[in-house]
């Protein structure tokens, strides 16, 4: 059985992800030890808070290299919320604080802020529509509601990386994919039965690889 690590990026929702993953039948371990991440068979990378702060934390914990290595080695990888945004080249959130901080640059594109004519943050349950069949959404009808809470969304440079879309004043990318790397903007750990099913599907992706 491949070891699944939930990366401790210093954010508060680690336990929620741990408990939901367990309820979905996965057997994860929480760690911020770079050696354990190098040895992991699969990774869940959560994140809440600000882009710059999160990048600083994973830099200090020396996690950037092991995370990039896991993705290069094609290990199943699930980025959640900010954990997905960090995989991109950068974020408009960095411009707010006048520091230009790069993301991990694993997917081309950046995180952009919702326009000001919409209530921001985008908070609540919204529908996620996969743009093609992917095992992450197996057993779901394609119109389930998932829980979102965010002010920035990702804009991939290539449509090829878009896995699912959601409407909120505009159509934005709510899930991305690049080989074994998956990212979701919503919180499966807080999305009731549909969220647990999605986490169980990630477990199956790990088992099948």
């Amino acid at each position, binding site marked *: 059985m491949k070891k699944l690590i939930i990366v401790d990026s210093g954010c508060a929702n680690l336990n*929620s992800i741990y408990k939901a993953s367990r309820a979905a*039948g996965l057997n994860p371990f929480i760690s911020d030890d770079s050696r354990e991440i190098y040895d992991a068979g699969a990774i869940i990378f959560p994140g*809440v808070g600000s882009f710059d702060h999160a990048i600083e934390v994973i830099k200090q914990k020396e996690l950037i290299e092991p995370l990039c290595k896991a993705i290069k080695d094609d290990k199943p990888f699930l980025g959640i919320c900010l954990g997905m945004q960090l995989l991109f080249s950068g974020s408009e959130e960095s411009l707010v604080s006048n520091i230009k901080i790069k993301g991990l640059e694993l997917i081309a594109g950046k995180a952009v802020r919702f326009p000001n004519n919409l209530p*921001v943050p*985008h908070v*609540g349950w919204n529908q996620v529509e996969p743009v093609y069949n992917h095992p992450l959404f197996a*057993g*779901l009808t394609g119109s389930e*509601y998932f829980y979102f809470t965010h002010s920035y969304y990702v804009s991939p440079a290539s449509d090829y990386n878009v896995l699912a879309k959601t409407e909120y004043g505009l159509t934005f990318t709510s899930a991305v994919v690049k080989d074994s790397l998956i990212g979701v903007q919503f919180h499966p750990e807080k999305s009731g*039965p549909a969220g647990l099913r999605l986490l169980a599907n990630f477990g199956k992706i790990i088992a099948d690889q």
Partner: protein
Amino acid sequence: MLAKRIIPCLDVRDGRVVKGTRFINLKDAGDPVERASFYNKEGADEIVFLDITASVEGRRAILDVIRKTAEVVFIPLTVGGGIDNTDFMQELLQCGADKISLNTAALKNPSLIRSGADRFGSQCIVTAVDACRLKDQPADKPRWEVYSHGGRQPTGRDVLEWVMEAEQLGAGEILLTSMDADGTQDGYDIELLAAVTTSVNIPVIASGGAGKLEHLYEALTRGGAHAVLAASILHYGTFSITEIKKYLSSKGLPVRPIAGKDDYDLREEF
């Protein structure tokens, strides 16, 4: 489309759910984890725990409630009541809370909203506002005053100014309770709701006054609310969440369909 949220509110005292009228005649209403689990199965979109404990032991009890609820309920949990520093917020979040609701402490020290938002993100910080309509105002220019300490102390602050300040400080949501409507079951104060929802650009949760299904609909349409909080009508069984969602859906509002526990078989294919 973004669904309108239905949020049961549980008053928790020393680790038990209580219900009463205006903070008096409190009666035991069961175990908070069981209640939360019940509402979760019924299709609640979020759970709010309001800690009305006065004692230090009771403060520890709310941590335990959050921890146990987070084991069995996988929807967002919000906690409010007596939270006045970011270290306690951190403890609550680590136990499984997703959002922190600030009220009296933020009125005393508005920078608490900013320090919470800086440390945990705006999505984590809800500002709860208890609003009371000022008398002797021109009918076309109503004004509301903010009250603190569970609606017991007038603060002299104007509600619209305070919600805009809270937004500037980094609040991610406003939980707006009309003290005039609260407990009456005569409907939400729609004027107040509309005034607040047009003044801020963050989601507003309507609270106080729900008695009929039409009231919820009005709050979500004319009032412009993103979510409705309800206590009495749910605790006393006037309506179930299923009934509320069916009604709102029949009126054309987007709601998250009610999910039963057997909706997705997690053991399938394993």
